[in-house]
Each structure stands twice: as C-alpha cells, then as structure tokens.
C-alpha cells in the first residue's frame, strides 16, 4: 500500500486543483463555477487525507479538517445555489457577465 509515492498522489490533487481553477476562470455559468469550486475543495481534501496518512499517521487532524471542509462545502453549495436561483429569478440568467451591476 505504501509503495504509492506521496508525490503521485499530490500530483493528482494538484492537477485536480488547477482543473478546478481553470473551470472557475473560463466557465461563465454560475453553476459551472460552483462545480469548479467543489473540485478545488475536493483536491484539498485529498491533500489533507494523504498528508495525514503519510506524514502523521499517529494523529487524526487531517481527517477532521477534511470533515470540516466537506461540511463547509455543503453549506457553501446550499447558499450558493440559493443565490443562483434568486438571481435567475430576477435576471433570468445565471451568466456571471450579466451580473455586473455592482461594478458601478
């Protein structure tokens, strides 16, 4: 089991993180952006679990952090989707570029 090098797992999480960042930058749809954020959070989770397992097997801190992240991600998703639906109601669109009233 331990023969998987740490770096390989970190590569996966880093790659996933930047895939999420890329999606966040390029997709105009707010739900897509929310999904990208979920990917980012998940890549962080992978990191926490991995470090916990490889570097500090005698503690459970990484596990707790990933639990909290999952909780927060859930809360964030709920609020974000509420906002998106509300926005759709008022603007009839969930394109970020259409919601730039706050610019002025």
């Amino acid at each position, binding site marked *: 089991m331990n023969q998987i090098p740490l770096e390989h797992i970190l590569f996966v999480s880093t790659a996933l993180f930047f895939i999420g960042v890329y999606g*966040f*930058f*390029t997709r*105009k749809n707010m739900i897509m*952006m929310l999904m990208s954020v979920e990917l980012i959070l998940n890549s962080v989770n992978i990191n926490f679990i991995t470090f916990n397992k490889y570097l500090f097997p005698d503690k459970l801190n990484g596990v707790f952090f990933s639990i909290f992240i999952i909780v927060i991600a859930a809360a964030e998703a709920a609020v974000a989707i509420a906002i998106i639906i509300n926005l759709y109601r008022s603007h009839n669109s969930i394109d*970020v*570029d259409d919601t*730039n009233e*706050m*610019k002025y």
Partner: protein
Amino acid sequence: MLEGKVISLIILLPLISFLILGFFGRRYFKTFSGIVGTTSIFASTLLSLITAYQYFFVVGQVNGVYQKIIALKYTWLQFTPNISIDLGIILDPISVMMIVVVTFISLMVHVYSLGYMKGEDRFSVYYSFLSLFTFSMLGLVLACNIFQIYIFWELVGVSSFLLIGFYYDKPSAVAASKKAFIVTRFADLGFLIGILILSFNAETLDFETLIQRLTSPESTYLKGIVASSFLGFSALSWGLVLVFMGGAGKSAMFPLHIWLPDAMEGPTPVSALIHAATMVVAGVYLVARLFPIYALSCPGALHVVAYVGIFSSLFAAIIACTQTDIKRVLAYSTMSQIGFMMFALGVSSYGGENGLGYMASMFHLFTHAMFKALLFLGAGAVIHYVHSNDMKDMGGLRKFMPITHLTFLIACLAIAGIPPFAGFFSKEEILSAAFQSNPVIFYLAIATAGITAFYMFRLYFSIFWNKEAHLHGEHHGEGSTTMMLPLIILGVCSIVAGFVPFGKFVSSDGAELHTEMHLTFSIAPVLIALGGIFLAMSFYKNANEKANNISVVLKGIYTSAYHKFYFDEIYLFITKKLIFNLIGRPAAWFDRNIVDGFINLLATLTQEISDTIKGMQSGRVQNYAIYFFFGIIGFVILFIFLLK
C-alpha cells in the same frame, strides 16, 4: 481715578455701536442708526473729556512732569518669555490729547452726518463704519505697544477703505478706495518690517520698554542695533525709516500721497473725519510716539522725516493752487499741513527748550483737526447746496449760506495763520522751531505758509464771492440744524483753540515747556500770509481774467501742477507698464505654463493611465479572479524564491 475699565469704555462704546449697527442696523434701526451711533460717541466724548481733565489736572503730573500711565494691560499673545503682544491703554499727554480730538471731531461728524446723509440708502451701514473707524482710531492712539498700534493701524485702513468706497456703485469711488488701500497697505509693509527690526533687536514690543532700551546710551540693545548694519545704515536707522514709511503712507507724505486726493470720493463728513482731522495724522502720531528714539538715538532718521515733511508741504501747496475741485484743494492743503507737523517733529530734539518742534507739531495737530474738520464740513455744506464739487459751479454763495460763509472764513483765517485764530499760534511755533534749527526748512516753510494763505483764500473767494450765483432750481435752506451746529461749534473752537497753553500740557519730555510769542518774529509770517490773502483777493474776489493770465504766463508750471506733477501717471507707468509687464506678465506666464502646466501634466498623465487601465475594472468577476491568481503567483515567487 483713571480707571482702566472706564477708559476702555471710550474705545469699546464705538465698537459696541459698530456691532449693533453692523448686525442689526439695517433691519431694526434704519433711521435711528444715526442716533445710536451719535449717542455712543457722545458718551465716549464725555468720558474722554473727563479722562483728559483727570489726567492733565489731577493725577497725570508728578513733580511737574507728565507721566506715562499704563491704565490697562492684558497679555494677549506670549511669544517668548520676553516678547508678548499685549493689549493695553497708555495714557500720556499726546494720547490723551488725541482721544479728545478724535472723539470730539468724530462727534461733530456724527452729528453733521445726521443731516448730510439723511435719506441715504445705507444710512445705518454708514454709521456702523463711522463707529468702526472711531473705535480703531481710539485703539490706535491708546495703544501701549507697537504691535497693538499696528493692529489698529490696519483696522483704521480698512475702515477708511470702506468709507471711501461707500458709494460703491460709482466706479471712481471704487477705484479710489482700492488705491487708498493698496498704497497705504504698501506703506504698512514698511511699517511691519520696521516693527520687526525694532522689536527683534530690542526684544520687546512695549513702547515704554522699547523707548527705554533704545535710548539709554549704556543699553546693550542700543549698541547691538546700532552695530548691525545693512547697506551702510544701521539697523536702527532702517527700522525707524521703515516705521516712518508706514506713517508717511497713512499721512499721505510724498511720495505716498497719491491716495489722499482720490480719497475725496467718499462722503464729505468722512473726508472731514478721516482724511483731514484724525486718520491722516496717525503718521505724525506714530513718529511722535517713538520720538525719543528718533531724537536721541538716530537723528539721521529724523532728518528724513523733516525733509520729507517740508517737501510734501511745499509740493502739496503748489498743487493746491491749481485744483478746481474744492475737496481736492482741501485734500492737498491737508497734506501740506501734515507736512508742517512732520517737519516740525523733524527739526525738534528731545527735551527742554529744544523740544519746541515736538510740542508745536502736536499743537498744530490739535488746531489743524479743528479748522480742517470745519473746512471740510463747510465744503460739505456747500456741496450739499450746489450739488457739485467744482469751484466753477460756485460763486456768490455768501448771501445764501451766511453761517457756512462765516465759519468757512474763520477756518480759512485759521489755516492761513492770521492772529488770533488757532492756526496762527501753532504755525508760529512750528516756524520758530524751524528757525532755530534749520534755516532752509524755515524759508521753505514760510513760503509754503504764504502759498497756503493764497490757495485757501482762492478757495474762499471762489466759493463765496467771485461771480454772482446762478442757482438752479429750488432754494432749500442752508442745511438742517444738525449740519449747522457742528460748524458753529468748530468755528468757535477754531478761534479759541490757539489760546490753550499747549506747552504746559504736551512736550517731548513731559515737563512744562514755556512758550512765548515773539512779536517781531511773528510779523514776517503774518505779513506773508496777508500778502497771499490779498493776492487771492485781487485775483478771485471778482470775476476777472487776472488769474487766467497768470496761468497762461506760467503755462508749464501751471499745467504740471494742475496735473499734480503727473504723479499719478508716473505711478501708473511704474505699476502698469513696468511692474505688470516686466514682473507680472512673466510671472503670469510662468504660473500659467510652468506651474499650471506641471499640474495639467499630472492630470493628463493620470487620465491617460486610468484610460488605459480602466479596462481592468470590467466588473467581470472572472477577470478579477485571474488577476488575483496571478497576484498570488507573484507573491509566491516573491516570498519563496526571491526573499528566501
């Protein structure tokens, strides 16, 4: 019982009246403004008469010498432990004499204005300005330190400015008020520098200390100020001459006289009060105030005073002969008489018999205030009657205005120096002081006295005799009682003021100065004055061509004198052509192109930059996220790789 608080009331009453009239006059008092102003000044006059009585006859004298009494002193601004600006009241013979003169003339003018300014639209404003002026003038004469005098000096200038420009819808009045303000302000610059020089070296602003430190020969301050020199003259000379420059500006001495004739644009009573009797003698008063320093420590500066005085006196007298505007004639005669006071101070020295000039100067100030105010008020009555300032529109008025005629004649005799009128006594003392010290000045002065008699009677005859009056329209009376009463009072004063034993009260060192009339000495000046009068009589008593013939013969001199020796033009040339073109224009160019250009460049640059980068503020969240991300990468590189 010289209570400081009571004396400060003399100053404060006009101030209160100014505030009341200034704030509430237009709305609440309207026609009563005059009464309010006059009442306050009347109270002030009574108080100052009581003060004068107390000072001169009860408490002022110690061992036959009049003391300087600091009746009130309040430290206002403490600069260093040594130097502070105080506000206080000094009582000495000249300040007490001045408060009497100022309040008295002011009262006369207030009363006179009740009639003269009646129906004026800004009646209450006028009275508030008069009160302001009286307040500042009283503050000036009672000032116990040189900075306080400066403060009130400027206040006096401001109220003069306001009153000259009282008819502010008349362009000439506006121009005159600006001119007066700018010229005197320019002179005050010299005054301020003089104050700074003197107080810096003497480390005090207080008059008494200043005089004491700069006159006692063993004082280190005096040695210091004499030792430090600039351009070959000691700092003391510079300081005193600069202070005199301020005085010359206010007193319209040559070459800073140009504002005074134009100042006649103001209402005539104002001219009587400010530009004849009180404010313009502030310069004389200032020199007299610092007289011990001038006389004991720096006679050179005193010579400057003397020569400027005599020159202005002669110069103004010549111009006065050619003017046809009666107020301007009076303005030049004022300038001439102030020149008399100035050179009287200039030829005087400190203490004892040699202080005759000082006492004569103050005496002349006193009498001159009476008869010059009378002349102006009389001229005001004439103008009120004829509705013109020009001599050519007048003539034969003696039948229509008997009181004015009589009082005007008294005043003319007084100024010409005919015994027993007031001017005779003071002028004789000035002449004898000049005779004792400087023959050149004496002969010039005596010539000036002759010219004075000539132009005053030219004025008199032109107004009241000459051709028969061709009065247009309605014949209202000579003027209301309020206008005639001051004329009569001042007329009486002009007769009796000369009999005041002035030397007993005012002298350079406070001790009694015995003056006696040398009859033989008086013959020459009186004869010359009479000569002037007869000359004027022959020219102007009846309409004839003699005067014109003379002016044709003396064409060059006449024209140049008529144009006031082109001084206005010279000043205009210097200011407009030289200063504006050589300094103003380049400065304006510099300001517009370099200074403004620099600021504009900054503005343009900012605008350009913002134009270029405003696309970044697109309101698109994702773009912001990208910038943010690049920023983080930048920070990571910075902190992990570069600042390792």
